[in-house]
């Protein structure tokens, strides 16, 4: 374990990061010169129009893609812990494992001691309200419950950082609000560094300490906005706050041009 006084302030350091893919029409630049420093314990949300490369950024941080140029580094505080755990967009839990084994997956892969698995998985299933469903298989669960399993799986792994790729985008409004609340409650306990991608400005403001607004293709950072609301937050009370509305409005203003631009690009590509 790295002693606290020796830790660098940035938990995630991204510098000059670019990613391009080879396509039939030549190279496609998904990310262009991204530089971003995320402090320890920060809940960083990233918003941008679809196709702006935000998922690519997350996949590079997750080690699922490699950067074409630049660096993306995660400071290691406790060697031996996994570097990151991702909550994927869509159905990512294994249909062939019950809720318990899905939540325990990361721990099983690290061959964690049995007692630790039992303790940690019980804790996170309890916190996500899934303990009574530990024996169920995914086909017996609702969409909201499946995403809870994915969140429990990521938290139970106890990684250095958490990566979330639009984890609630497939859920209905009510479920989404409930899960946002649950996520904040669980996160408040040990305040891990989080990078959370969303296309919802509301969600970004509700959850984040800091919002990174990205441009349309090629993905660049347009603006970084600090969110002043204190924690712990109550999702519904927060939405009644006029300052919340003002901030959402401001970020929408930043985003609007980019969404329009993304739309024009799509139209041109289609023509």
């Amino acid at each position: 374990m790295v002693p606290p006084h020796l830790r660098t302030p940035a938990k995630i350091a991204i510098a000059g990061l670019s990613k391009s893919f080879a396509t039939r029409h030549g190279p496609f630049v998904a990310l262009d010169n991204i530089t971003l420093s995320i402090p320890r314990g920060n809940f960083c949300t990233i918003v941008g129009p679809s196709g702006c490369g935000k998922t690519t950024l997350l996949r590079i941080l997750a080690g699922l893609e490699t950067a074409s140029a630049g660096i993306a580094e995660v400071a290691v505080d406790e060697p031996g812990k996994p570097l990151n755990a991702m909550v994927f967009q869509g159905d990512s839990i294994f249909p062939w494992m019950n809720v318990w084994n899905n939540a325990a997956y990361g721990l099983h892969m690290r061959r964690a001691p049995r007692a630790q698995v039992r303790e940690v998985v019980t804790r996170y299933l309890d916190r996500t309200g899934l303990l009574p469903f530990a024996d169920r298989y995914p086909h017996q669960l609702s969409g909201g419950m499946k995403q809870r399993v994915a969140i429990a799986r990521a938290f139970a792994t106890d990684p250095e950082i958490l990566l979330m790729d639009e984890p609630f985008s497939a859920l209905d409004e009510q479920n989404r609000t409930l899960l946002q609340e649950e996520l904040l409650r669980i996160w408040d306990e040990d305040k891990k560094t989080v990078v959370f991608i969303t296309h919802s400005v509301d969600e970004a403001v509700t959850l984040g300490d800091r919002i990174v607004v990205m441009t349309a293709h090629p993905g660049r950072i347009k603006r970084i906005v600090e969110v002043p609301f204190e924690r712990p937050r109550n999702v519904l009370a927060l939405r009644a706050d006029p300052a919340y509305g003002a901030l959402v409005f401001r970020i929408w203003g930043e985003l609007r041009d980019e969404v329009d631009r993304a739309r024009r690009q799509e139209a041109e590509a289609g023509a």
Partner: protein
Amino acid sequence: MSLSPRARDRLIGLASPAVLLLLWEALARFGWIDARFFPAPSSIATTFVRLSRSGELWDNLTVSLGRLAWGSLIGGVPALLLGLAMGLYRPVRAIVDPLVAATYPVPKSAILPLMLLVFGLGEASKIAMVALGVFYPVIINTTAGVLEIERIHLDVGKNFGATGWQTFRTIALPGAAPLIMAGVKLGAGMGLILIAIAEMIGAQSGIGYMIWNAWQLMSVDTMFVGLVVIALLGFAFTWMLDEIERRLLPWKARG
């Protein structure tokens, strides 16, 4: 009469073969069909009892079952492992796929003479035939099963640090299991066909031999007993594999 549609279907399902057997019995007894070729069901049943009392039937059945078991194991296990590797690793697929595609269309029965040449008239050639029959459906279905696994599940494995073997065991095998089971069922049917053929040529035991020998001796009753036993075997295998599937893949259960 008030029966649910399902109960009625089941009743009809039992009645229709029974009626056919009765009709057959009547036709044979009244001499409307040639009882030398189509002996009455009652006389087949008598032969069945006689053959099982003398032990002849059980001896042949045990021999066939043993060959089926060894053949399934020798053909199925490598097919399973190779299929998993083909599904997971592109280079393995590139090497093995053309070989499978080139040899699969050759009718397995056409390979029997070659098998007899290579493995001789003993057990090995029969086992090899069953193994061949089981190998292809299992390897093809296993590969397809792994390729059908959602990309996101492989990403999850990678993200949570699964090693190659862990990916094999926790994602590729269970993810492909439904198609693997379908392949095993096809393979079992294929094995049954091939063991019957293999035992008819160059064998001195087994159900296939029993049928062939009965033909040569014009002992038609015995021939029909062999056919009934093979039909029952196929039925039993299907039932057994369905049951295994139900227990092995509880997550596939609908409702």
